[in-house]
Structures are given as structure tokens and as C-alpha cells.
């Protein structure tokens, strides 16, 4: 409407100016992106190449690699070479850890979504002045180190911890419930660590939601449930996708949480890979495991994004 008020000459001048601005800004943008590109090159692409190369080498006896091509690392992922007759035998140990990790990550993502959505909706429907306080509260855990917070969980759930002492003190139970070093402990730790990563993107997309649309849907005979499924969820899809990715990917590669709360008994992929570079002294295997994880995530991502974006279009 504003352009209609401008004279044609003004428009053409503006267009010319804009075209020039676009050209110079494109050149400037390339220059500005240089530092980022250098950082990504040195700390992102280069290590990835090294990992890729190492995964095809032979492990040296005391760590490191010998420069000799081998696909053993990938074979060892699924098979074990028999010491006596040199045949390959299928060993699903690593695969089980991968599947377990996927399960942990999926459960974490789903529960975070179920807990995070109402939380974010609550925050987004507060008066604007209040909302920032709620965001601040959500970010408080970030103020201290994840390791410290995980150790704190340990003190809460261990046999002589807060929960068990309280329950025994109240006479509810007479023997402590074992929670630490179980799958439950890992799951709890993951949920605790990643919930804010779900809430924040959900909040930012719900905050932008036009609540008059919800009124309009009510007016058009939609019940509360229908409003949720037909209007609120489709419109907050970008936040849901971002939140799920931000939770799922780091949860899959979680290292500290399962190490401390799982006590090294219940491994996840992150611990497994770390082992290869530490006590396992098998760098190529560690590299191969990392690359297999990456490939798995990329495949999962591909299907996830393809499915969800399709749903958005069908609305």
C-alpha cells in the first residue's frame, strides 16, 4: 500500500539503489562469513576428515594408529574375530548399546515434549512482563555445570540419598529403593539435562502464536482438544521440530549423565566411544563408532524432517 503512494521515478530509483545495495552487501557478507568459515574448517571439517581417515587404519598397541589400511574397525562393530580359527562371529554387543541409546534418546525426547509443551504454553500465555521471569527460571540450571548438577541428582537418588532417607524416615519403606546406577537413573538424568532445550524453542514459537486464531477456532465449533490439534500444534510445529532435534541429538550422544548415573554398567554410545580412546586403546574402532552414530542420526533426521514438513503442508 505504501508503494502505491510513491511516484514511478522514486520506485525505479529505489530499485536501483536496492540492487546496488544487494551487490555490495553480498560481497560484504562473504567477507564477514570468513571467520566462521575458518572456524568451521579447522574445528569441524578437519577433525571429521581425521576421524574418517583413522577409522580405516589399524590400532597401535598403546593407543594411536598405525598407517595401514584396514576395514577392521567397521567389521569389529558387528563381528568378532575368533582367536583360534580366525573366523568372524556376529556379536551384537555394540549394536545393543546403540539401540539402547536410541531408545533412551527417543524416550527423553517424547517425555520432554509432553512435559515441555504445557510448560511453554503456560509461559507464553502469561502477561508479557511476567514471561521473561519464567524464561529466566527455565535457564537457571544453565548457570551451573552439568557435571555438578548430575552429581547432585546422584546424591538425591542414591541408597542413602534424600529420597530414600525421607521414605525410610516416614516409614513408607524399610529397605532403600535402588535407583542409582539403573536405567531409571540414566533416563531421569537425561530428562533433567535436556528439558530446557525443549521448553525454550517451544516457548519462542508459542509466544508468536496469534491467540485470536484460537478464539476463531472456538467460534467455529472446535472443542478445546480440536483447537489444540488443529490450530495450536500445527502453528507451533517449527518449535516442536527444533525442540525435538535439540533434545534428541545431544541425548543420543550423552556422555556424562550415563557415566555418572549409570555407573559404567549401563553404557550409552558416548561412553562406548570414549572407552575406545581410553582403556580400549582402539582409536580406529572409536572413530568408526562415531561415524556410524553420525550416519544413523542423519538418516533419522532425514525421515523425521520429511515426515513433519509433509504434515505441516497437509495442515
Amino acid at each position: 500500500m505504501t508503494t502505491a503512494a510513491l511516484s514511478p521515478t522514486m520506485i525505479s530509483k529505489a530499485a536501483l539503489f536496492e540492487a546496488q545495495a544487494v551487490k555490495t552487501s553480498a560481497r560484504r557478507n562473504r567477507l564477514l562469513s570468513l571467520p566462521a568459515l575458518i572456524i568451521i574448517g579447522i574445528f569441524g571439517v578437519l577433525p571429521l576428515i581425521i576421524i574418517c581417515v583413522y577409522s580405516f587404519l589399524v590400532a597401535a598397541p598403546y593407543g594411536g594408529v598405525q598407517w595401514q589400511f584396514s576395514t577392521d574397525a567397521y567389521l569389529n562393530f558387528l563381528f568378532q574375530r575368533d582367536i583360534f580359527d580366525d573366523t568372524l562371529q556376529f556379536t551384537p554387543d555394540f549394536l545393543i548399546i546403540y539401540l539402547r541409546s536410541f531408545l533412551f534418546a527417543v524416550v527423553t525426547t517424547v517425555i520432554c515434549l509432553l512435559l515441555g509443551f504445557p510448560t511453554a504454553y503456560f509461559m507464553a500465555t502469561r502477561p508479557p512482563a511476567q514471561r521473561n521471569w519464567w524464561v529466566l527460571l527455565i535457564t537457571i540450571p544453565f548457570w551451573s555445570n552439568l557435571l555438578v548438577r548430575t552429581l547432585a541428582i546422584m546424591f538425591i537418588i542414591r541408597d542413602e540419598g534424600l529420597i530414600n532417607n525421607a521414605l525410610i524416615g516416614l516409614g513408607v519403606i524399610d529397605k532403600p529403593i535402588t535407583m542409582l546406577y539403573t536405567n531409571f537413573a540414566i533416563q531421569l538424568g537425561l530428562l533433567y539435562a535436556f528439558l530446557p532445550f525443549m521448553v525454550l524453542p517451544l516457548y519462542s514459537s508459542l509466544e508468536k502464536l496469534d491467540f485470536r486464531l484460537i478464539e476463531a477456532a472456538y467460534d467455529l465449533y472446535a472443542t478445546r482438544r480440536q483447537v489444540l490439534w488443529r490450530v495450536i500444534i500445527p502453528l507451533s510445529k517449527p518449535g516442536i521440530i527444533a525442540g525435538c532435534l535439540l533434545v534428541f541429538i545431544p541425548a543420543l550422544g550423552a556422555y556424562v549423565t550415563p557415566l555418572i548415573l549409570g555407573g559404567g554398567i549401563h553404557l550409552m554410545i558416548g561412553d562406548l566411544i570414549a572407552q575406545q580412546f581410553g582403556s580400549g586403546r582402539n582409536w580406529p574402532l572409536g572413530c568408526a563408532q562415531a561415524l556410524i552414530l553420525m550416519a544413523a542420526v542423519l538418516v533419522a533426521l532425514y525421515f523425521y524432517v520429511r515426515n513433519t514438513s509433509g504434515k505441516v503442508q497437509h495442515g
Partner: protein
Amino acid sequence: MGIAFENQVAAPQLPSRPAYGDNQTGTHLPERAGSLNGVIVPEQPGKNAIEVRGVRKVFGTGENQVAALDTVSVSIRENEFFTLLGPSGCGKTTLLRLIAGFDFPTAGEILLHRQDIAPLPPFKRPVNTVFQSYALFPHMTVAQNIGFGLEMLGKPKAEIEARVAQMLKLVKMEALKARRTSQISGGQQQRVALARALAPQPKVLLLDEPLSALDYKLRKEMQIELKRLQHETGITFIFVTHDQEEALTMSDRIAVMSAGKILQVGTPRDIYDRPAERFVADFIGETNFLPGTVVSKQAGVATVKFAGDATISAGYPEGFDPTGEVTLVVRPEHADLVPDPAKGTIAGTLANIVYFGTDTHYHVKLDGGGENFIVRHQNSRSSPVTFATGAKVGIQFEEDAARVLKD
């Protein structure tokens, strides 16, 4: 052309929706007099679609309490184009939201076909709204938006498609049905919003300043379009606006609101010619206010004396007893200029002449003092302009032009 809205597929009433009296609205198109441009509609004894009884709405608590609606009662008839007119903050949108069900009244009842709907949530009321912001769903196409209400009512797919096609035709949007709502213009969005609200065949359509976002020309077009749609569908329209011209041209009846109260309900002509209060006269159209003193009165006509010792007889509304100092109200077009000051009702000096194209306004400085009196003269090619600024003139009132009003 009423057929456009008739049921093509017999639609069973949903059990979840309360049955409201006879199901005539929508298919029944009464013979009705046109009411474009303020032509008086004969008072129909028709049934009331909406009855608002003693409704109060208070927002906030404690010291911050604000009564947005202060005990309002009004009846809106079936098939009527009813307008709630008033300045912003007068409570007109609050009343509309109470009828829609977005808010609930603090006290009083709202009847739809004699059934109290005040406690029902919006999705249980056969009432639809056209929002000021249109509130179209951005993740759906034009057709999906229009079909949304029917889909939520659980209508069969074939019926939804048929009705959506009908509605697209009704608002002339067939070509754009597959577009996203973000890909169409404001005027087109307006049409989609209308079609979406009309598609479920509501008993009453609520319109919350739907034309305020459109530019002048489009607004004029949509005013006529809205009138046409109301005529074709036979649905009761309740229209909220602060634009008095819009209210006068479109409405069958108007309720003028101020500060949470309804001041007057009547046809556009009633409201314009016989305003009940000074506020109504002031808010609708231009008006001259003259201070005066009541000398005598009988049978609804008062004789009023004002500065310069001129006297005039003026009508006053029922239930109002003017005494002492009063204000006289005269519409600018109900007065005329005469060259001889002695021949007019009051005399003055022509202070200013403002040309408006269709008419000319003469600002007269009265000999008795006070605000300038404005006389509006419709221009025609044959009428010569004979007055010049500074000339002494008389102002003549048409019969019944002056009225005494409550302040």
C-alpha cells in the same frame, strides 16, 4: 437470489448442539423492504434473535474494577442488520464478545431464540464471528479455512465440499480457493473471513469492525457487499463499528453506545433525526448546539428563547422534561441562509465558507455570541453562490429542525 444459501444436502442437527426453536433461519427468506441509505424499514413484529437482558460486565478486581457494560438490555430481531455504534471504549466490542461467548457476563442473561446462552462456551453457540483482524488460519488454504467450522461440526465430507464451493461463489473467491491466506490481499482475506463465518449457517453473525482495515474505496464496496450477503442469507447480522456513516448506510437498526450504556436504539433515520440525547446528536453527523431558555411547553413542543431574544418551538424526546437552561440541536442541513437578517430565526455574520464538492458549509458567527453556527447547502450547478464572507445573514430553520435534548 436467496437460493445460494439453501441446504443442498439435508443436514442433521448435531446432538452436541442445542436445538434452537424452529430451524428457519438460513433457508427462510422473508419479503423485506430494502434499507440501503437509510430508507425506513417498516417496524416488523418479527421474533427476537438475540435478547440481552440486564447484562453487566466488570473487568478487573478491587480498586481496578471497570464496568465495561453497565446493565445493558437490547433486543435484536431475526434477519436484522443491527449495528452497535459508539466511540472506542464504549463497550460495543465487549457486548459482541459476550454474545460470541469469548467472555461471560458478570450479571444478566443473553437469550438466543429464548434460550439462555450466556453460560455456553463459544463452540456450543450457533453464532459465528468475523474478526477485526480476520484471524484466518495461516496454515490452511482459503477453502480449508472456509470449511473449518463445518469440519468441526462433523459434517460429511461431500457436504463440506459443496458448501465451501457455495460460499466461495457467494464471496466471489472461487479462483483463489487453493491459495494460502497469506497469499491474498486484505480485501480478499475479508471475504474469506466472511465466507468462513457464514459457512456453518449461524443463527447470528457477529462482525467486529470488519471493514476498519480496508482502504476507503474497498470499504465502500464491502459495505454494499455485506448488505447483499445479509439480504441473500437472511441471517441476523450484528455489526460493531465506530464509523457513524457506515452505521447509517448499512443498518436496519442502530444502538448508540457510550460508557458502557446503550443510549438509543432505532432506525438510522430515528437516530439521525430524533436523537434522544446530546451525545447521540453529537456523535452522529454534524450538529449545531444552541444554548437557550425554556419559556413554555405543551404536548412535546417547547418554546425556547435564546440570545438575541429570538424564540423558536422545538420538539423534545419522550420522558424528558426540559426546564430552564437547555441546549437546542439543529442539523446543518436543516437550516438555510437568507440574505436579510431580519427574516431569519437568528441573525449573524458569515465568517467562513468551506466548499466540499457535494455541498458547501457556511460558518455563521451569531450576533448572540457562542460557537459558530454551520449551515450546509447542497451544491447544484444551477444554484448560484450569492453569499460572501462578512455579509450579514439570517438563519432560517426548517419546520421541526430544532430539538431540545438532554445534556
